[in-house]
């Protein structure tokens, strides 16, 4: 066996951070691709004989959807607060920040369900319009990403509060994930809830 010069154990290269960033890129492509198809169908519908994309008698509940967007401002602040506190080994504040992040995540899910209930939009549409199917597909996918985010917050909290306080990287990765969710939801909010 050829003997290469041994080196000291390399410093960790933020594996969790890089992995989460790559997963966020994949998630952004998922939502971006879905929104691109949404816009394509919307253009076709508007160019069609009815000149409309949003079905008649369907109103977007803008209060709930706007509150969802505003919630993400809080989510990002709390996620970054967790990073800030972790850097200072402030276990108590890390716990509070992660808990609030998860709580706001739950609030966003609640708002999304409110949107569904208030819209009363059927998935199946006898007119052949793609709106219902595409609305539930894209918002449902976003909902799944919210749920993953909450699980991520809980896992991060359990690890950190369980004593792995040196593992600050996961707190940073957690923040990255929520930033990605906030960016993805902002795109979705504009395309689905604003441009209608």
């Amino acid at each position, binding site marked *: *066996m050829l003997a290469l010069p041994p*080196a000291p154990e390399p410093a960790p290269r933020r*594996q969790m951070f890089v992995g989460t960033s790559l997963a966020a890129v994949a998630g952004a*492509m998922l939502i971006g691709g879905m929104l691109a198809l949404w816009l394509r169908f919307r253009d076709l519908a508007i160019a069609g004989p009815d000149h409309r994309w949003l079905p008649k008698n369907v109103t977007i509940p803008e209060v709930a959807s706007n509150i969802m967007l505003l919630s993400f401002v809080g989510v990002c602040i709390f996620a970054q607060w967790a990073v800030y506190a972790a850097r200072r080994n402030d276990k108590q504040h890390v716990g509070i920040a992660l808990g609030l992040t998860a709580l706001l995540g739950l609030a966003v899910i609640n708002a999304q369900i409110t949107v569904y209930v208030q819209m009363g939009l059927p998935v199946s549409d006898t007119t*052949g319009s793609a709106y219902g199917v595409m609305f539930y597909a894209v918002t449902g996918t976003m909902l799944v990403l919210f749920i993953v985010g909450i699980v991520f917050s809980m896992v991060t909290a359990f690890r950190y509060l369980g004593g792995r306080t040196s593992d600050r990287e996961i707190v940073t990765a957690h923040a990255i994930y929520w930033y990605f969710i906030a960016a993805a939801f902002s795109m979705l909010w504009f395309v689905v809830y604003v441009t209608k």
Partner: protein
Amino acid sequence: MTTIDTASHAASSDAGVGRALSTVAAWATTSDHKRLGRLLIVMGLLALLAISLIGGLLGFERIDATSTVLNANSITQLFALNRVGLAFFVVVPIMLGLAVAVVPLQLGARSLAFPRTASAGFWAWLFGMTLVIISIAANGGPGGGAPKFVALFIASYGVMLAGLVAIAVSVATSVLTTRAPGMNMRRVPLFSWSALVSALGLLLVLPVAIGAVIYLYLSYRYNKVPFGGNTGVLQWLGFSLSQPTTFLYVLPAIGFAAEIIPVTARRRMPMRTVVLAGLALVGVAALGGVTQSEQILPWAGKGLNLDQFGTKFADLLNYAFFMALPVLGVLLVLLIGPLAFKGSRPKITSPFLFGFFGLGMILVGMLGALVNGVTDLGLRGTVFEEGVYTYICYGAVLAGMGATAYWGPKLWGRRLPENKLIGLALLGTLATVLSSLPYFIAGFADQPAGSITFDYSGPQNLWNVLVTVGHVAMLVTVFSFLGVAVGGFRRGQVAGDDPWDAQTLEWATSSPAPVNNFADVHSVTSAEPLLDLKPTGGNS
């Protein structure tokens, strides 16, 4: 004594069963990258047996365009299975399997990043693939007539892609974060670099396909009109199974060919940075997948009407960006590679032949794809497309078999017999040419793709006979390779630590590599760390 003897036999039998169960459990729950990689490679090769058989069956159906052996539903499903299977049952898993098995060793890392994610990805892929096969067998694939199984097909297609995305995240993170000290990105081995570019491309392209799958699934379940129902499935997912997206899938095969050239020449790769750039250029293909659009050159009519020069130039530029840049990348590898042989004493081995011929086949397929997109030639919708697809995929499989033979010593500790492999490399190349080239010719005669009924002037029987023979020859090649591999890796010649006189870090550990790959962390000062230690120093 009798009692003791009986108890002893019973214990031995129980121990045997227990040992077998624990072996199965160890493989099923493994997070060792070498085992995961082997699982992916072996499953991919086994899937290729079925896919090449289907290719042969479809070729056989086309020999006589006036009669059919299979019913119409089966034929539709077999076409779908052949297309989906070649990419996602065979090529992508084999390429990712090689990356999972080899990349950490090349980087001097002790494990893969996120090994459990990769393991979950493998099982998701296998589960999705199994359901895809079941749904297609039950007439539920694209264009299928069994609604529940069409829905199952769409859902399982998404699961399969999600599994591959998980593995790609692991591979890309490994290259970005687990390199040995001193190994900057310019010193990353060529195969690992190609695996990184391919994995990043997969991360960009496959989620877009998953998004389409989600729409398709809900649309199919609740409202079949917008996405075209069962017949619209391949229309919406077709971009993930056509060119230039497939260039991305075969990129690690090109990387392997680039890796084996300097080893064969026993020299350092000249202009290595340009080769790295060439491999990255192939990654431009990801943009073709992301845009979900067919890349065509919409030129028609005679001559170049100068009034439309601006439009035509823009068309050409767009087409060249998506389709010609990846080809340029492969050409760079092919042009620079031979420079390594200048003044050297090359040692031709079976992995080199597999890699060289595989790269050649991929290049022919890519050039075919470049021609196929020119509207005026009228090749779109003909079997020319099938020829292109087969050239690219079978080319990648050839390189994949070469890579398995090359890195086999690190995974199994033994070498495969060279003489048998050289024969298989030649047979595999012949099989690829036979199963693809006749369709290039038949495409110009307007034989339609995905159909068994056609009528055109020319020796149509001959082309389809040759294609059938080609697919059967590929089946024989893969079957023989698996036979040689099973025998060779179990009872073959024990390999030394560096049996190929190679250059990269994986050859600095024992064969087979231990669980944690390396006893010590190595420090690297060049792209060819092993060559630095050898007396010739890459100047043989």
